[in-house]
């Protein structure tokens, strides 16, 4: 309950802006559970001592008291528009690598993107007051930002010099563009044979379906990667569950640029493996790596293409049901969607016992059906339809929270579909916390999704800064690496090089 009533008049979106935000309504709205409450949870399963051990050694709060795994590794990120280069370099810089983000003097266009073009949802930095989109701020982590115009001869020379000083270059430009400027892997590896060079893109930098740029210079972005690997084709509700034509029954892209994120994480893995081979196996040689959104997403596309090779099956979309497991789905309930999961016999009967307490029909029709007694046989389509029809009969009269409480009594992996406001206030989420706030030098209090690798005994990942004003670190980086003082930088700036 709000402490006091506020008189509010809303006539436009502008009136809504001051209603929320960290000053008016600090996160979390209600306090997270206390460690003492958690201790009770651990004790209940006689794991009190172990729980205390975890809390003492893994808690997020201790991350800045520990060393960084990739200290001394230097990355130059040379990418625009897409998320792959940002996520790859972010994963590595969270683990302690030093990250230099290179942008043209006009800046990465990703800085200008904001939902529905609403500038009021962009954040202004403390240094220049320039508005910047939140995707860019959220994904550029622990970076130093410099500008460099590689279309000028002097800019290219500077880029070459920088490439001799770094361990890793993550590049995301149209295929062959940097190579055509004499700045490709084959050129730079001659200057720095230890260089690990990773290109990230949508479909490839070579091959008949390689990345394209439109006649007018527009880049190819996600969801081209998602569409090229059959991901989009496989996702969404089938037309017999929802009508086609934008009404829910079409193949659908992920709400986020997921293929780019997947490309980014596999790029980080390939880079780290190359680094291990270079440094720990003593080969001393770098290499050329290429990760694409389409292919890295295909790598994790379950068995789909393999299945086509097996019996020419083309996977169809199956909405919120999984065609491989029973139960494993979400279905509508009174106030949203309730997800229920469990495949093995043990879990199957536990779910059944929970539901039949309210709906005895479920027990009779599901538990007594001989076809449903065997784990694998339950995956047949008619078995899914029968199971979920009856499950939804139970769900439609209850709310998410009621369903969750009932299922939790039987220790079933179940949970409601949550929106971001519910995610941010979910007790476990804010205890860890998984959405966290940073008091950033540039952007003030910003909520962000915490690094997934931040929970480690010895070298946890950490978020030190988010986003960065364009060219904010020109002075430091150019002085530190190339010895350029303010005079030289002014000269380069006047010439349009930085």
């Amino acid at each position, binding site marked *: 309950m709000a402490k006091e009533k506020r008189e509010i008049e809303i006539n436009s979106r502008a009136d809504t802006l001051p209603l929320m935000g960290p000053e008016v309504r600090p996160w979390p709205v209600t306090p997270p559970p206390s460690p003492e409450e958690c201790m009770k949870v651990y004790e209940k399963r006689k794991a009190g001592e172990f729980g205390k051990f975890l809390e003492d050694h893994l808690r997020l709060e201790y991350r800045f008291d520990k060393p960084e795994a990739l200290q001394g590794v230097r990355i130059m990120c040379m990418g625009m528009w897409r998320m792959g280069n940002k996520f790859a370099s972010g994963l590595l810089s969270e683990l302690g690598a030093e990250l230099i983000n290179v942008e043209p003097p006009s800046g990465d266009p990703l800085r200008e993107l904001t939902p529905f073009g609403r500038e009021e949802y962009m954040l202004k930095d403390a240094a220049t007051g320039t508005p910047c989109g939140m995707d860019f701020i959220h994904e550029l982590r622990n970076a130093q930002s410099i500008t460099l115009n590689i279309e000028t001869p002097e800019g290219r020379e500077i880029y070459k010099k920088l490439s001799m000083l770094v361990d890793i270059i993550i590049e995301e430009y149209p295929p062959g563009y940097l190579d055509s400027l004499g700045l490709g892997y084959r050129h730079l590896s001659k200057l720095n044979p230890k260089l690990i060079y990773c290109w990230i893109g949508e479909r490839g930098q070579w091959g008949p379906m390689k990345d394209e740029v439109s006649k007018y210079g527009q880049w190819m972005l996600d969801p081209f990667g998602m569409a090229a*690997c059959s991901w989009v084709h496989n996702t969404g509700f089938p037309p017999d569950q929802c009508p086609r034509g934008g009404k829910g029954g*079409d193949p659908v892209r992920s709400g986020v640029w997921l293929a780019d994120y997947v490309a980014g994480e596999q790029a980080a893995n390939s880079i780290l493996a190359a680094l291990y081979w270079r440094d720990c196996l003593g080969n001393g040689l770098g290499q050329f790596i290429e990760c694409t959104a389409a292919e890295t997403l295909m790598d994790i596309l379950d068995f789909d293409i393999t299945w086509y090779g097996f019996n020419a099956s083309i996977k169809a979309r199956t909405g919120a049901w999984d065609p491989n497991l029973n139960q494993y789905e979400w279905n509508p309930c009174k106030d949203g969607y309730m997800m229920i999961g469990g495949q093995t016999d043990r879990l199957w009967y536990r779910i059944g016992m929970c539901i039949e307490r309210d709906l005895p029909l479920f027990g009779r029709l599901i538990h007594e059906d001989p076809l449903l007694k065997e784990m694998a046989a339950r995956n047949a389509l008619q078995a899914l339809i029968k199971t979920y029809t009856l499950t939804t009969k139970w769900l439609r009269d209850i709310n998410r929270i009621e369903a969750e409480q009932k299922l939790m009594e039987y220790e079933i992996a179940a949970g409601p579909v949550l929106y971001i406001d519910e995610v941010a206030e979910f007790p476990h989420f804010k205890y860890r916390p998984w959405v966290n706030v940073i008091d950033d030098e540039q952007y003030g209090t*910003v909520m962000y999704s915490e690094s997934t690798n931040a929970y480690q005994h010895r070298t946890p990942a950490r978020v030190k800064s988010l986003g960065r004003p364009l060219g904010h670190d020109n002075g430091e980086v150019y002085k530190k690496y190339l010895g350029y003082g303010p005079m030289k930088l002014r000269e380069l700036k006047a010439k349009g090089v930085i």
Partner: protein
Amino acid sequence: MDWEKEINKMKVCDFDELPGPKSKEELEEMKMPFEEYCKKVFDVGNEFVKPDALKGIRWLSTTMYIFTPHSVTNLAELGAECIKVEMPRMGDPMRHTSPFNEAYLYPLHDTRPMSGTGLGFTNANSNEYYITMDYHVPEAKKLFYNLVKMSDGLTECYRHGTFDRWQQGYRTLMEINPRFIYVWGGGFGYGPKIFGGSYDILGQAHAGLASVTGAHEDFGGHATKATNWCIDWYSGSQITTAILAALYWRSKTGLGTMIEFSQVQAATRCLGYTAPLYGKFGIVRQRWGNWDTQLCVHGIVMTGKTDFPDAINPQDKFESRYVVLSAFQDADFQELCNIIKKPDLFSRYKTHKERVGAPAQIEIYKAIEDWAADKTRSEVVRIFRDAGLLAMPVMNDREVYESEHFRIRGTVRWNDDPLFGDVLIQSAYSAGLMSRTPRKHKWLWRPVGADNVKIYHELLGVPMSKIKELYEKGIL
């Protein structure tokens, strides 16, 4: 001669160390067209003549399902020796998972020749050795500790505290092998929901991904599940990132570590502006279907006709009608408006800021779909591409398989599997091309306990008679 000595004294470097091409071959390499150069360095099909990036690393995988196994598969594809430990006779539950109970490869185990392993198991445990062990038995415990002594790390997915209770958790194993890297992967980790179970679908539902995927509620859409177990796989890859960084750090310090990874969190990590937008302005991001909240035109549209009206497979017959179109920059959008014969759209939405607003998007995409109502997918793609714009069909599994692009790049290829013969594979090579230490796919999987002799007898020196005894008791 003296002058030769003098020159040697004056030399500060070796000619071969100087930058620039050194041989005719290298000179040619510099002159090659870029695509040819890429083909040459990645040298698809000859991966096995190149070394393994993670040579010498041995990793234990006491895992189930997809999420934690995948963190180990990445290592196995990069050349580590990985040992998958399963329950005797039964194996990983994922072996009993197959689309609509259709596709199995036999046998599951030498006592169960009529049961198979379902395709659901595909790609999650490639290149690994398969052993079985019942951890509860004291005789097995000694074997487990011996394996730990000889390995670099382990990934496990049991309920938190289970391994600790069984005296095989981080606290115990660190004292046996201080270099050991111990990974726990699960849904939640320490905290109030520590014992909560988790699946891919829970990550999709709980962490906010589902709330932004699918058509908007106002258009009749629902929160949409990715049919694929994307959060399992994607989170598993992020564990690999943590493992590789820990290995790198260990090479300097000699110390192992414990990594606790929660997949539910990983799904929140990829939501981009969703969290900061909520934190700053209290805006709760909603679904926006096949369009893009930040770019217009940049989305997937439906055409009136399908490409293969006479095909037998309904996925070809009815679904080959979706196109990705992207023309968000001014010149591209103007061209698009000309193509669909709606130049007035451009005059009304000249700037990107104007056309990316929600009402504008609704109007623009409707105009495109109206224009495409009498066209097939390939017609629309051809018209846009001929005009120099970006467009592509939404491809299905068959089209991916038949695509020359993926075939040439080696990311979809047939493998002669030692057990199952020709198997079409889509993984490993597709996770990234590497010029010196490429990923490799060796085998898809092996039956439950297939490598018991290799590991217990050849590696740990357990006599064959003892292995037989343990096997008969159901311990192996």
